[in-house]
C-alpha cells in the first residue's frame, strides 16, 4: 500500500476521483504525511518561481526585492494555521477528523493549484499580453478545482453535510484570525517583558 510509486500516484488519483480517494484516505489510511511535506515544499518553490521566473511581460514584481520569509509566511505558515484551526474547530463541531487526515487531505487538495502555477509560469514565456486571458483561466481552474477538492475532502474526513462543511470552513478562517491575533499579543507582551528587564538592568548600572 505504501510503496513509493503508490504514494506518488495517489495525489493525482485523488485529484481525478475525489470522493473515492478521500473515502479511502479516511477508512483505509492510504495517504502519507511525507507526500504532503513534499507538496508543501513544491508549493514554496513554485510560488518563488512564479514570482521570479514569470516572463518580463507579465511580471510586475521587482526581482531584486525577493523576500523568502514573506513567501514562507504566505504559504507554509498559512497551511499550518489552517490545519490546526480546522482540527480545533471541527473537534468542537463534532467532526470525526484526526489531525493526520486533515493534514494529508488539505495537502492533496493543494495539488491542482500548484500545478496551475507551474503552467502559468511556463505559459508566460510563450504568450503575448493579448493572450493573458488564458493564463488567468488556468489560475482560476486551479483555484476552483482545489477549493472543490478541499470541500469534498473535509466533508469525507469529518462526515459533515455540505452546508456544515462550508460553515466549518468559515469558522476555521475566524480561528486563523484569532490565532494570529493571539500570536501578536504574545509577541508584544514578551517585548514588554524584555524591555522591562533591560530597563531595570540599565537603572542598576546607572546607580551602582
Amino acid at each position, binding site marked *: 500500500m505504501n510503496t513509493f510509486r503508490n504514494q506518488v500516484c495517489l495525489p493525482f488519483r485523488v485529484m481525478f476521483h475525489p470522493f473515492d480517494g478521500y473515502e479511502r484516505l479516511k477508512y483505509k489510511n492510504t495517504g502519507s504525511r511525507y507526500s504532503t511535506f513534499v507538496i508543501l515544499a513544491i508549493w514554496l518553490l513554485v510560488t518563488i518561481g512564479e514570482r521570479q521566473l514569470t516572463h*518580463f*511581460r*507579465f511580471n510586475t514584481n521587482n526581482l531584486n526585492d525577493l523576500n523568502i520569509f514573506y513567501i514562507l509566511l504566505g504559504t507554509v505558515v498559512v497551511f499550518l494555521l489552517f490545519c490546526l484551526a480546522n482540527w480545533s474547530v471541527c473537534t468542537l463541531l463534532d467532526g470525526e477528523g484526526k489531525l493526520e487526515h486533515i493534514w494529508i487531505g488539505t495537502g492533496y487538495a493543494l495539488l491542482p493549484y500548484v500545478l496551475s502555477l507551474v503552467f502559468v509560469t511556463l505559459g508566460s514565456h510563450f504568450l*503575448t*499580453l493579448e493572450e493573458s486571458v488564458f493564463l488567468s483561466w488556468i489560475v482560476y481552474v486551479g483555484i476552483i478545482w482545489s477549493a472543490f477538492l478541499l470541500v469534498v475532502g473535509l466533508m469525507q474526513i469529518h462526515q459533515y453535510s455540505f452546508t456544515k462543511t462550508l460553515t466549518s470552513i468559515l469558522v476555521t478562517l475566524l480561528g486563523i484570525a484569532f490565532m494570529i491575533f493571539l500570536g501578536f499579543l504574545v509577541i508584544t507582551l514578551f517585548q514588554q517583558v524584555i524591555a522591562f528587564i533591560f530597563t531595570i538592568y540599565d537603572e542598576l548600572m546607572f546607580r551602582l
Partner: protein
Amino acid sequence: MRRMLKMVSLCLVFILFLCPSLAYAAPYEGYTYDEWNRAIPAQNGYLPDKMICGDDMGAGRLKNPQDMFVAPDGNLYLLDSGNNRLLVLDQQFKVIRKYDALIDAQGQPTALADPKGVYVDTAGKIYIADTGNNRVLVCDQTGKILVTIGKPEADIYPQHNDFRPTRVLADGTGNIYVIVAGLFQGAVIFDQEGKFTGFYGSNRVELSAKVLKDLFWKKIMSKEQKDNMERYVPVEYTSFDVDAENFIYTCTARTQSGADEIRKLNPMGDNIFKTRYYGDLELFFYKGEAFDTSFVDIAVDDNDFIYGLDATRGRVFQYDKEANLVFIFGGKGDQLGLFQQPAAVEHRGNKILVLDAQKGNITIFSPTQFGENVLHAIQLYNEGMYEEALQPWKEVLKMNASYSLAYISIGKAYFNMDRYKDAQLYFRMGADRINESKAFREHRTWVVRQNFGWFASTFFAGILILYIIMKRKQWRAGFRSLVK
C-alpha cells in the same frame, strides 16, 4: 638599490598630492527615476554657467524679483518687484530700458506695487500683473497703458475676494489669462479690451476616500459643526505658460492626489497628459511634515520641452513633450547653481535661466555634451524618426546605460526594421511591456513559420500518442482474446 626605490616612490606620492583634484563642475549630483520610481544616479544634463546679479545688469541691487519673461524678440523682461519696476535686459543681460512708472490714459504716471507677473506678446505689448494695486495692466513699449483690468463685476465671479493677480499671459488670439490668488475657479479670461469672459481650466475637487467620508458626515452634522469642518476647494494654479500652438501648460504647488502637478490644457481646459506624478517621486517626512515637490513656475520651449521649478528643493525638472522625465538639476544653497528662493524659470535659446528672489540674481544653465545628445535624440524620437535616432541614442547609452527612453526608442527602430528579436531585447531593457509583447508576437510568428514542419509533426504525433494511450486497455484485452 632599495633606497633608490623608496626615494622614487616617495617622490611620486608627493607629486600625486600636488596635482589639483578635479573640481566639481556642479554643486548638485544628477539623478533620475527608474521604472520602480526610485532615484538612481545619472549624469548631469545641465551645468550652471554664471550668475547675473543686479549690479552686473547695471540696475543696482534687485529686491525680491518675482517674475521674468523672455520676449519673442529675445529681450528679457525682469520684474524687480521689491523696487516696483520692470527692467528690460538684452542678450548680454545689460539693462536697456527701465519702467519705474507707467503712463495712464490721462497722461499721469502711475507706479506699480509689488507686481508678480509679466508677459510680452509677439506685437511687443507688455502685460503686467500689478498685484499690490489689484489690477492687470497692458501697455506698449513706451510705457503707455492701453488696457487696465480690475476685478470683474459679473455675478459668477466671487466678490468677497480681493482681486490679486499673480500671473498673466496672452494667447495667440489676444485673450488675456490671469491667475488670481485665492481664486479656485481656475484662470480668469479677459478679452482684448479687458472685458471679463469667464474662467478657464478649473481644477476639479479630486475624489478621494476622505472627501467621500466627509460628504457623508456633512449630511448628518449640524450647521455649526459643518462650519468648523475643512472646506474642499480645488487647488489653485501657481503659474502657467503658453506654447506656439496655444496650449496652456499650468503648474500647481500641491494637488490633493499628489499627481498631475503639471498639466497641458486644451482650449476646453482639460488636461491632455495622462495621469502621472511630477517632481520628486519619493516622499519623505521630517518632523512630521511631508516634503514634496511644489512647483512655483513653469516654462515651455520651442521644442515643447517643459521645465518645472520646484521651490521645496530648488530643482528644475525637465520633461519632454510626452511628459517623460528628461533631466533634474539645481538645488538649495549658496553656491553657483543653487538657489535660496527660486521664483521663476525661463529659457533663452538652449540655455535655462532661473530667477532667485532672495539672492536677487539670475542663474544661467547650459546643457552638457550628454545633455545635448539626449535632447537631440529625444527630438528625433518624438518626431517618429526612430532610425535616424539610432546613432544618437547609442551615444547616449555609452554615457548612461540606464536611460530607459534610449532603449525604448532603439527598440522601436528595430521593430520598424523587422528585427524583432533585437527589438524584444531592447524593449525589455527599457521596461516597456506592451511593446515587448508586440515584438514577441511578431518574433513568435516568424519562428513558427520557419519551423512549421517540426510544429505540425509534433502536434499530430501528440494526438496519435494520446489516442494510443486511451485505447491501450481495449487493445490489450482484444489481443489477449485473440491469443487465447
